[in-house]
């Protein structure tokens, strides 16, 4: 049994009315069923289509009343279609009288019109349903700001008869899926970060200390790395300012140049002053000024002509800065290692606070002897307690050696020491020896070893972090940026708890040093456990102080270092404690806010109270910590059907009531899941809360705003992905990669992205939907351009460009996109059958039944076949029972024979035979290649495509299969589409303002309009 959908239903609907006849009444139609239709099928049809073994399982005996026909109207629409086409009854059988046949055909159409009118505006049944997997992922991404994709472990969602996975008809729940929901919710909750002012989400779990450190450290390091700290960029910016007139910007200011050159507007004036304004006679600044003066002037407006010169200036400044760096040492305390935390932190503080000073001892005064390089102590001595700072001395020896090897910049004429010293001080003040320290090993400042310890204090074995970024704050950052950085550091301690943990590790693993127990031993566990208590901290301090005081030979700075260290530790720990206590109420507020966004509607007072009561209960009665209780509460929110189900709540309870207007928040949800596959954003919720969303003008404005948003790309992915059946192509594995080595993961991804890019662009530019069929352009990235033989596109795979003359490369529009050509090829050959079937069914909306059970196999490998596929198919069509279907789509695939199994252009098939691309289309016309099929569609099938687009769009928007009463809306969509030049936005607006979209009902569905496909 071969169905074919009735083309252009609108004509059927309109025909009886246009003829001026009054619409038939129900009684009348019932009578005609009994008198004409039923006898007709009994005579001509039931001999095959009757009883238990009815042909094509279409038992025409079973329809006893008109209501039976209404319920199964799609089959009857096809029956009428086959009668009209003259396919049925088959030729050898008795043929009916033409007039009677026409009466039956008319009757089917009139029943359809009758039913559509009778239920006009019926919203149909839109079942409550869980979020689809895609919606779940998108919603979590929008809720958390992180692309966690917790649904990746869920089984694939089944599609409904319209081909979409977003309806209650197909989305079901099971215990094993619920278990996965539980794991998914837990996964999301595990990535929650508690911050001083609320909650956030990390891109990874945040349960273990190493995770928390990774998250917080990475944020600070990223911030540092984004700052403009390269001197060369500042010199170049200064040069652009100097030559602003020649560069065509006579009105430029230092601030405007800084903005254009992406350097700090705070620091650039200092650099400008130092190299272009101030008068320097000697020292490094004088040298930089002389280099500055010989920078070339711009030619032909080239604004980076001086780049090499600026790099040379930078290199000079950096080199001198390294040579005059000042080193600091841990103060010496007998019986205590110089790497003891109080002493080492003191040393690090000297470095951090004096980065704009320099070592006067670096200057080499003429007439005075050169310094001698001290013997570099062996690192073995490192382990002798009470020794001086060996690491520091080693670094100093290395530095003196470097100064002797590179004396020129440091030489000072006899008798001019003070003049030079002042000049070096001015230089050092503008050019710090570092803006910030990103990583630090235990041989600091020697960076030749121990790299990669981000923000580390460089302690041996125990953890510890140290902040060193004063010059960055003083010279580069503005107030807002400084505040941001302060927040990042405060959150570092709040989230990763590093001060407490450093102190704890130190207490248990190093503080024993004060008792003479050796460097890797701890203090005894205090009975009360509270080692972070101020009393314990200061008690330990006093032990250190006592030991420091016990030997008069100890450096007096030791006392200062010890006091500063323990005060710092205590203050930092107390600050975190305080911030924690203050943060809890904010976390709870963030929890209810999260629930509100997750439920996509305002929470009632009772719901809020209930959520907080649950938190309190598990915290107090179950003894969970604040963090655990927050995580569990979050899991509870994500497991609640308010989140993971889409239920359009009506204002009043109404089962089987007539259509009711959707309340504002339900409408906001429908809209956002239609256009974004995700939750409404704040703007949309605000409009809903203000009661404005149901005003047509506001609704339209929102639709247009949402279509411009990046999230509309999800509409392209989900709607078009299902419509054109490429949604799962990212996992497509049917290509033999040894035969087609060009098909790698990058190319596969690019193939998938091409239609998404194309359609997103159509939507965002509100282009013509017919571009899908006839567009001469497409979008490519580097791998796809290569695959298509287009001019090289450089850059990463995420660099996409529009190609306007794609036609010249055999591309343009959807039909020749390699994703479809590849997906519809079985691997080692093409498949004109599958490709043609895809065009007929997916693009043009023709209903074609699946093949009968016993079809002859085509060879798997084209290279090993005796005949070209085209000829094998021609043979196949010689069999009339095959021809009935194949005649409708083989030709639509044969025209693509010029594209191989992965959509590549080709002249020969895999066996080396020249390919032919001409075909005879179902209407008898002929054409060749992409052009040929486009011409045929334009002439004969464009309306099929438009009709199909309207139907698919409506079904997707409503989240259900279509019903007879939708025909009126589909008519309206088609009319708007034609009137607006096939643009997308008016089409979407028609959907959004349709009664189906704006209202809801309960009750049983009427018939569907189309048979279930597959």
């Amino acid at each position, binding site marked *: 049994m071969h169905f074919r959908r009735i083309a252009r239903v609108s004509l059927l609907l309109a025909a009886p009315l246009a003829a001026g006849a009054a619409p038939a009444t129900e009684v009348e139609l019932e009578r005609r069923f009994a008198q004409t239709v039923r006898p007709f099928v009994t005579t001509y049809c039931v001999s095959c289509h009757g009883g238990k073994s009815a042909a094509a399982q279409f038992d025409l005996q079973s329809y006893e009343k008109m209501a039976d026909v209404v319920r199964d109207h799609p089959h009857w629409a096809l029956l009428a279609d086959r009668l009209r086409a003259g396919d049925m009854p088959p030729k050898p059988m008795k043929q009916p009288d033409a007039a009677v046949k026409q009466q039956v055909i008319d009757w089917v159409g009139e029943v359809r019109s009758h039913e559509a009118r009778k239920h006009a505006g019926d919203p149909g049944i839109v*079942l*409550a*349903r869980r979020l689809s997997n895609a919606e779940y992922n998108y919603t979590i991404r929008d809720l958390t700001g992180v692309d966690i994709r917790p649904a990746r472990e869920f089984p694939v969602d089944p599609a409904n008869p319209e081909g979409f996975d977003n309806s209650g008809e197909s989305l079901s*729940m*099971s*215990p094993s899926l*619920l278990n996965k929901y*539980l794991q998914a919710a837990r996964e999301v909750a595990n990535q929650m970060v508690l911050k001083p002012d609320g909650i956030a989400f990390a891109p*990874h*779990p945040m*349960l*273990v*200390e*190493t995770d928390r450190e*990774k998250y917080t450290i990475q944020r600070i390091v990223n911030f540092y790395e984004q700052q403009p700290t390269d001197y060369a960029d500042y010199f170049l910016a200064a040069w652009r300012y100097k030559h602003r007139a020649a560069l065509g910007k006579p009105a430029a200011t230092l601030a405007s140049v800084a903005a254009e050159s992406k350097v700090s507007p705070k620091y650039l004036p200092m650099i400008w002053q130092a190299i272009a304004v101030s008068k320097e006679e000697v020292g490094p600044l004088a040298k930089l000024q002389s280099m500055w003066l010989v920078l070339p002037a711009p030619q032909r407006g080239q604004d980076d002509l001086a780049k090499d010169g600026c790099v040379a200036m930078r290199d000079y400044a950096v080199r001198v800065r390294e040579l005059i760096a000042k080193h600091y040492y841990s103060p010496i305390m007998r019986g205590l290692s110089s790497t003891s935390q109080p002493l080492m932190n003191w040393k690090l503080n000297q470095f951090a606070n004096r980065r704009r000073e320099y070592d006067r001892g670096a200057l080499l005064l003429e007439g005075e002897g050169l310094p001698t390089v001290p013997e570099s102590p062996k690192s073995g001595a490192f382990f002798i307690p009470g020794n001086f700072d060996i690491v520091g001395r080693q670094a100093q020896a290395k530095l003196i050696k470097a100064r002797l090897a590179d004396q020129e910049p440091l030489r000072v004429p006899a008798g001019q020491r003070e003049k030079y010293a002042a000049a070096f001080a001015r230089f050092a003040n503008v050019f710090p020896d570092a803006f910030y320290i990103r990583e630090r*090993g*235990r041989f600091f400042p020697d960076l030749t070893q*121990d*790299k*990669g*310890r981000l923000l*580390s204090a460089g*302690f*041996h*074995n*125990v*953890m510890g972090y140290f902040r060193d970024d004063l010059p960055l704050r003083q010279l580069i950052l503005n107030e807002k940026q400084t505040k941001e950085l302060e927040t990042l550091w405060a959150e570092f301690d709040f989230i990763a708890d590093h001060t407490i*943990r450093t102190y704890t*590790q130190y207490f*248990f693993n190093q503080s024993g040093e004060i008792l003479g*127990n*050796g460097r890797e*031993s*701890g203090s005894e*566990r205090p*009975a*009360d*456990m509270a080692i972070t208590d101020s009393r314990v901290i200061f008690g330990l301090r006093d032990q250190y102080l006592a030991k420091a005081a016990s030997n008069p030979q100890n450096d007096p700075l030791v006392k200062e270092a010890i006091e500063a260290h323990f005060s710092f530790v205590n203050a930092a720990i107390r600050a975190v404690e305080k911030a924690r206590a203050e943060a809890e109420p904010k976390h709870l507020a963030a929890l209810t806010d999260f629930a509100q966004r997750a439920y996509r509607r305002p929470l009632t007072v009772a719901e809020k109270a209930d959520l907080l009561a649950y938190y309190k209960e*598990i915290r*107090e*009665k*179950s*003894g*969970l910590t604040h963090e655990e209780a927050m995580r*569990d509460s979050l899991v*509870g929110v994500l*497991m*609640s*059907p*308010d989140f993971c*189900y889409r*239920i359009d*709540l*009506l204002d009043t*309870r*109404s*089962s*089987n009531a007539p259509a009711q207007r959707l309340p504002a928040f339900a409408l906001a949800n429908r809209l956002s899941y239609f256009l974004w596959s995700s939750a409404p954003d704040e703007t949309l919720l605000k409009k809903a809360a203000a009661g404005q969303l149901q005003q047509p003008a506001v609704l339209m404005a929102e639709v247009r705003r949402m279509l411009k948003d990046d999230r509309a790309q999800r509409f392209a992915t989900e709607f078009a992905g299902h419509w054109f059946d490429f949604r799962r192509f990212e996992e497509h594995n049917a290509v033999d990669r040894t035969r087609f080595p060009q098909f790698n993961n990058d190319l596969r991804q690019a193939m998938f992205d091409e239609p998404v890019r194309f359609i997103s662009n159509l939507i965002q530019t509100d282009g013509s939907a017919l571009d899908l069929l006839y567009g001469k352009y497409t979008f490519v990235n580097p791998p796809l351009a290569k695959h298509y033989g287009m001019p090289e596109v450089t850059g990463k795979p995420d660099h996409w460009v529009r190609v306007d003359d794609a036609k010249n490369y055999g591309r343009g529009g959807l039909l020749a996109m390699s994703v479809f050509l590849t997906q519809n090829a079985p691997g080692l050959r093409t498949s004109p059958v599958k490709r043609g079937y895809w065009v007929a069914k997916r693009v043009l909306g023709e209903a074609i039944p699946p093949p009968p059970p016993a079809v002859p196999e085509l060879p798997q490998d084209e290279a090993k076949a005796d005949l070209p596929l085209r000829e094998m198919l021609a043979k196949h069509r010689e069999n009339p029972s095959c021809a009935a279907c194949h005649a409708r789509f083989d030709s639509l695939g044969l025209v693509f024979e010029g594209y191989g199994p992965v959509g590549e252009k080709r002249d020969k098939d895999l066996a080396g035979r020249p390919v032919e691309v001409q075909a005879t289309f179902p209407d008898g016309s002929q054409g060749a290649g992409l052009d040929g099929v486009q011409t045929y569609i334009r002439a004969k099938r464009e309306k099929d495509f438009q009709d199909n687009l309207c139907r698919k769009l409506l079904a997707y928007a409503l989240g259900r299969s279509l019903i007879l009463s939708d025909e009126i809306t589909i008519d309206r969509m088609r009319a708007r589409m034609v009137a607006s030049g096939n643009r997308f936005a008016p089409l979407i607006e028609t959907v959004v303002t349709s009664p189906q979209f704006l209202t809801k009902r*309960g*009750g049983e569905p009427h018939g569907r309009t189309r048979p279930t496909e597959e």
Partner: protein
Amino acid sequence: MAAQDQQKNNRIPRRAVLRGAGVTMALPWLESLQVRGATTKAPTAFPKRFGVMFMGCGVNENQWSSTGDGAEMKLSKTLSVLEPLKHKVNVIDGLYLKMATGQGIHPAQTGSLLSGAVIHRGPIIHAGTTIDQVMANKVGQDTAQQSLVLACEQPMTGYHETNFSMAYSSHISWQSADSPVPNEVYPSLAWDSLFENRGSLRNLSILDRVKDRAGALSTKISATDKSKLDEYMTSVREVERRIEKTRETKTAADDAAKGKSKPAWAMDRPSNGLPEDLREHARLMCDIIAIAFQTDKTRVATLLLARDLSALYYPFLNVKEGHHAASHDNLSDGYERITRFHLGQLAYLAGKLDAMPEGEGTVLDNTCLMWLNNLWSGRKHDNTRLPLVLVGGMGGALKTGRSLNYMKAGNENRKLCSLYLSLLDRMDIKLDRFGDATERLTDL
């Protein structure tokens, strides 16, 4: 429907039995709860358990040897603590882990010990899933906790001079390449984790809440929508029922012991805080593992007794130096005493499990405890052979009472990961490869 209501009434409301931390509660602890559902089904086989105990920095190699099998087995001074149980012991000498050698000392010798992974230097931590977690992922689904990961010493997260993170020295269990399993150092919290308010049972409280929410919602929606929501509710109830089955375990443990007319063993909740005395700390951790194994709260446990680069110290053993410092003189009597103390914890836990009847044997007979060290000799940082002892018969899957020596078997045939493959086999987890091994250990 009526049956369901009745069940509901018989059940003590779950939230009522959630206990707060700080409450002292003795086992047996479930007697007052009538366990509903299919409780009559007798277990066909007792669960197999696996435990790891770790001590870092090596042993006194002069005092570590075992020869002969069965009654002929001769144990050296350190190993003598296992004398009473030696028929249930396998002393395995000569295994090693190639990727733990040649990378530098300490953290690099430890981070891959239970995974056989290649670990990374620098700021980004990267190791591999460890054998205990591979087992836990498989056999831990039906227990209150997938695994217990305990430690008697706080972790360190700084950097060693080799630029490997100290996290590798501090954690022996890794749940993924990126993250260790957090160590529990507090006995009280470890104890809590086994009972009502923790672990997978936390989900029950959440599901309870979900039912409340769904119930509230269902009063507001149409009959058709309700049918979809019912599908959800049914799934929630089913999952809840599955989780609740884990509550039957105490009864099962009591039943298993019944033949010996001995109830499951009882234990008080340890008090809050860290025990001041290491001996008490270690003992409590062993007790918790024992009761968790007996009542089938978990089937996999690891206990880090002393981490690599440990800073524990032992006034009660009359050793002045800290653990790591002492290990540099590992041939000393003092370090032998330290080693014997930690191996003594294995003897203690094994003895405890052996005193717990289960079926015709004991819990120990259905368990395998593995004690190992990351080094052979601390003064040489030598890890080309590792001290390792197995105790327990794994439900008859493992022959015991043997001295096994692989020193002369050749490097290909003495891989630590081969032992892991063999142990995984005996836990009914068949893998083609673990770490660097594709072959099982011969003659185990």
